């Protein structure tokens, strides 16, 4: 017994080593893309503020106010545009067979909050963006994030004053997108190589498109409305099974120079998810 105890005491660093490595592995595996530990991340007030030092230095010193104003204005206009497009679609849908079923008084469910990028990476494999708005500003996980030029990502973790965004440039990111004007959706993902390009996969082969065509969000999720610009087609190839195309998309958002972004709030998101979940449950 005494021998055993002595052995354990002399080898205690081995146990400590194993314990610490297990703690690390638990940390690595416990958090899925959307639920991560708030403590060890930039949503924490201390780390968030220190990390935002860099963001503060790299922002434009004099132009900040002007820049912000413009970005906000632009955001409002873009929202208005999406809203109008949506109305047109509703009107068109109403015109034809099911006259009168669509609710004309229905408002466009998306609103937005401006936020500034405080910490950003583009060339790691798993990139994350930290923005300076959090729970106190009404942000919740799974909200869409866009910039003036296009899609940015999805809010994955929310602290009191900061949130972490899972951008397109992260292998965990998936978004249903389509070529503008064609109604077949593929899945947008990033292969980890180049921060300027992402891939649109599983696009059916009969979809017609050319290089240079615009790619937009499909609106099949409750996170982004349809029609947000993602990028342009720069190349394409057939997948192994020959029935699908994989498109190389040149992203319209320049992730290296992100400053102000807009967080989209969908008032009907919860309702849609609840409904979808119920449908899934009924299916079983």
């Amino acid at each position, binding site marked *: 017994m005494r021998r055993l105890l002595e052995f354990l005491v002399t080898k*205690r*660093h081995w146990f*400590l*080593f194993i314990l*610490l*490595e297990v*703690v*690390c*592995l*638990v*940390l*690595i595996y416990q*958090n899925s893309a959307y639920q*991560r*530990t708030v*403590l*060890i*991340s*930039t949503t*924490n007030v201390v*780390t968030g503020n*220190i*990390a935002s*030092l*860099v963001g503060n230095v790299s922002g434009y010193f004099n132009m900040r106010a002007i820049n912000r104003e413009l970005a906000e204005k632009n955001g409002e206009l873009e929202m208005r545009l999406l809203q109008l497009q949506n109305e047109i679609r509703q009107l068109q849908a109403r015109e034809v067979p099911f006259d009168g079923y669509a609710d004309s008084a229905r408002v466009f469910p998306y609103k937005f909050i401006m936020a500034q990028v405080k*910490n950003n*990476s*583009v*060339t*790691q*494999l*798993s990139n*994350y963006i*930290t923005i300076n708005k959090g729970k106190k500003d009404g942000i919740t996980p799974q909200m869409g994030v866009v910039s003036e030029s296009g899609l940015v990502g999805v809010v994955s*973790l929310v602290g009191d004053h900061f949130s*972490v965004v899972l951008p397109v440039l992260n*292998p*965990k990111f998936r978004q249903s997108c389509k070529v503008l004007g064609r109604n077949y959706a593929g899945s947008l993902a990033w*292969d*980890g*190589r*180049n*921060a300027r390009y992402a891939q649109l996969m599983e696009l059916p082969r009969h979809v017609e498109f050319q290089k240079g065509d615009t790619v937009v969000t499909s609106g099949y999720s409750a996170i982004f409305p349809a029609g947000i610009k993602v990028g342009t087609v720069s190349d394409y190839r057939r997948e192994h099974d020959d029935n699908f195309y994989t498109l190389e998309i040149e992203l319209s958002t320049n992730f290296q120079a992100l400053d102000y972004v807009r967080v989209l709030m969908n008032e009907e998101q919860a309702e849609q998810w609840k409904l979808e979940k119920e449908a899934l449950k009924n299916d079983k």
Partner: protein
Amino acid sequence: MINDFVRNLIYFILFVSIQVLFLNHIHFLRMATPFLYVYFFLKLPYGMSRSQMLFLSFITGLAIDAFTNTPGMHAAACTLAGFVREPLIRFLIGKDMPEGLYPSFRTFGYGSFFRYTFLIVAIHHLILFGIESLSLFDPLSLALRILGSMAVTILLVFAAEAFNLESQRSGEKQ
């Protein structure tokens, strides 16, 4: 002892801030990111208790993780590097090292210090990038990223070492 503690604290704050404020934003040719913060535990005094060494390296990794939103990745790599550090020094230099010595060019000699740095950095980077590639495996770019990052990290460690007045002085004292 107190001196050691203050010195380690200064090293910790200095190199962790350099890492999170500047180096994390560098991606040379979209491949290589220097992880200079390993310099902190490279320079911890020899002969520290191994549990203490493990804790320090674990906490260093965790601090970096907090800023890169990668809980556990850096911590896992650092813990392993911290664990093998002492046997590695003994293997490279032999057993006749006085305790409390800071590893440096002077105390180790250029060749041994290079081998020491190289091996620790290699272990750290292999684990770090290995864990990272669990979410997306791409062997060629993985190898390039590891080699590129190792090269810039080692370069920066040597630059830091060359300009580190403390290491030159303590070398004479020993």
